[in-house]
């Protein structure tokens, strides 16, 4: 019996997403990334006594957008609360967060599961401020940069509905896609705009109570989410099977070793003594305001995926890949709008265009080819002006240089040879050079057809019209 049959993993995720505001949550300091340390600071975000927080209206709007995009209910009133703990990146000695009355509750999202989807519940979405950044330098000191302190975040807490590391990564991928579609977060995991903590526990399969959970922090890529959780699952199962007990604690993932390590330094910090933030009155959101924000939401990935499949006739897989980011979906739709057939457009965008984009966040706006050029290229293939393989060369070159497809074809002389007399000459030459193969073919080894076609393609630099070439080769190889 494998471990998988004996143990079930239960995972709940807490994702922190940085909202795309220009200023911090409670002061007018800029949120720009990469500025000189401690340059975007003021008495409010530096925790000076006597100052008062003033809530950023755009942060509320973005948080609402996120919550509505996740299908949440918005209670008429939410409240900020102080979460008290001491850490050098938190100048006030407390973080302003939301506790008893969060902004939003009871949402959900759908992650891919086989051919269909699986629903993962969202317990709550609340607003809070980010802490500063600690830099661990050499010597007796750590360094503190408060540029990030006070940056608006939403914390999105899932129900413990996730059952594997792969599902956890899918959940974060789906969430990231929804948040970027809703334009509330840039989704950049490397810069920390999207951060994920996982509550992981295991229990004997069939059990209905939860095992003791450990909280895993510091997983800043999809790869690390899977790696960290898988490591943690194995660790807990081994521990229990050896007669030990899982301790409720925070564990830090170390991407160099691939292990999770206990974070003893924070063990005592879990008594946060939350209380309502006296400096901020409750946040009241009227149904009219909520409706207004709901109406401003764009088409979300689920709806778009469904439309690509149902209206454009794309396979589920294509629809999923193309809708992962709004930019890629827009790019694809623009190729279709420029006249390409949806499935051809999908093949080229998922193949060559995606290949032209690197990294986890495809940014089609960085491409040197506008969608219209891809449509032009597809039209040239369909008209027989160029072959599919030449088209691949053209797009690869176009994505480098930005030159239009027709220009590249013209400049390089890549137009297909569809002229029969030119093809006759090439085919005759190949037949003359390979008498042995000709004999075998005529003796019945018809698979050799491809060999002759390939030889002609080689001689013509791939420019022979493949359809016509096939016909000619077949003709010429018939017994004399």
């Amino acid at each position, binding site marked *: 019996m494998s471990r998988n049959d004996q143990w079930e993993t239960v995972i709940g995720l807490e994702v922190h997403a940085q909202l795309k*505001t220009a200023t911090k949550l409670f002061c007018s300091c800029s949120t720009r990334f990469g500025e000189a340390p401690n*340059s975007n*600071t*003021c008495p409010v975000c530096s925790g000076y006594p006597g100052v008062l927080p003033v809530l950023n*209206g755009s942060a509320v709007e973005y948080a609402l957008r996120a919550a509505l995009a996740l299908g949440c209910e918005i209670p008429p009133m939410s409240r900020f609360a102080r979460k008290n703990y001491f850490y*050098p990146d938190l100048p006030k000695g407390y973080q302003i967060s939301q506790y008893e009355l969060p902004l939003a509750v009871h949402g959900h999202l759908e992650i891919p599961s086989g051919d269909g989807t699986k629903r993962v519940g969202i317990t709550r979405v609340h607003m809070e401020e980010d802490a500063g950044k600690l830099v661990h330098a050499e010597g007796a000191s750590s*360094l*503190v940069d408060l540029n990030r302190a006070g940056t608006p975040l939403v914390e999105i807490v899932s129900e413990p509905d996730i059952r594997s590391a792969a599902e956890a990564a899918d959940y974060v991928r789906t969430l990231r896609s929804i948040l970027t579609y809703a334009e509330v977060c840039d989704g950049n995991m490397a810069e920390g705009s999207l951060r994920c903590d996982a509550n992981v526990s295991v229990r004997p399969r069939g059990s209905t109570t939860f095992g003791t959970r450990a909280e895993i922090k510091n997983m800043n890529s999809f790869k690390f989410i899977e790696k960290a959780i898988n490591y943690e699952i194995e660790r807990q199962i081994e521990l229990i099977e050896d007669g030990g007990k899982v301790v409720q604690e925070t564990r830090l993932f170390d991407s160099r070793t691939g292990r999770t390590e206990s974070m003893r330094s924070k063990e005592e910090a879990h008594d946060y003594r939350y209380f*309502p933030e006296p400096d901020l009155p409750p946040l009241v959101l009227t149904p009219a305001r909520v409706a207004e924000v709901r109406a401003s939401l764009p088409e979300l990935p689920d709806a778009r995926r469904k439309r690509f499949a149902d209206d454009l006739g794309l396979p589920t897989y294509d629809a999923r890949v193309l809708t992962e980011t709004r930019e890629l979906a827009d790019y694809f739709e623009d190729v279709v709008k420029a006249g390409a057939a949806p499935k051809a457009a999908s093949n080229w965008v998922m193949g060559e265009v995606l290949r032209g984009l690197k990294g986890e966040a495809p940014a089609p706006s960085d491409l040197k080819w506008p969608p219209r050029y891809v449509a032009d290229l597809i039209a040239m293939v369909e008209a027989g002006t160029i072959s599919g393989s030449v088209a691949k060369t053209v797009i690869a070159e176009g994505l480098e240089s930005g030159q239009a497809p027709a220009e590249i074809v013209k400049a390089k002389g890549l137009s297909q040879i569809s002229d029969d007399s030119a093809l006759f000459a090439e085919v005759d030459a190949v037949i003359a050079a390979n008498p042995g193969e000709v004999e075998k073919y005529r003796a019945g080894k018809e698979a050799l057809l491809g060999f002759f076609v390939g030889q002609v393609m080689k001689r013509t630099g791939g420019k022979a019209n493949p359809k016509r070439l096939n016909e000619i080769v077949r003709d010429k190889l018939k017994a004399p």
Partner: protein
Amino acid sequence: MTIERKDVVHVAKLARLDLNEDEIERMTRQVDQIVTYMRSLDELGPLDPADVPPTAHVLDVSCPLRADEPRPSGQDEAILERAPGRRDRFYTVPKVIE
């Protein structure tokens, strides 16, 4: 006694207060008196607390909102200068070991 010595020691630790024996004893007594005083509310009669929403804020207003327009404070340098420890543009704190 509503508040016991261990409560005071726990809260003092969380608040990073270094109390001596005398202070622990005095704080236990005083905090207990304060909490016990809250029992005066019982004199209001048989009021069901579930009927009364807890007051988190005394003003009947919604949280005022601010426009999302960056405004440099112009005080970043002054704040850095006042820090107990500084290296270049960073604040320094005793080494944090993870």
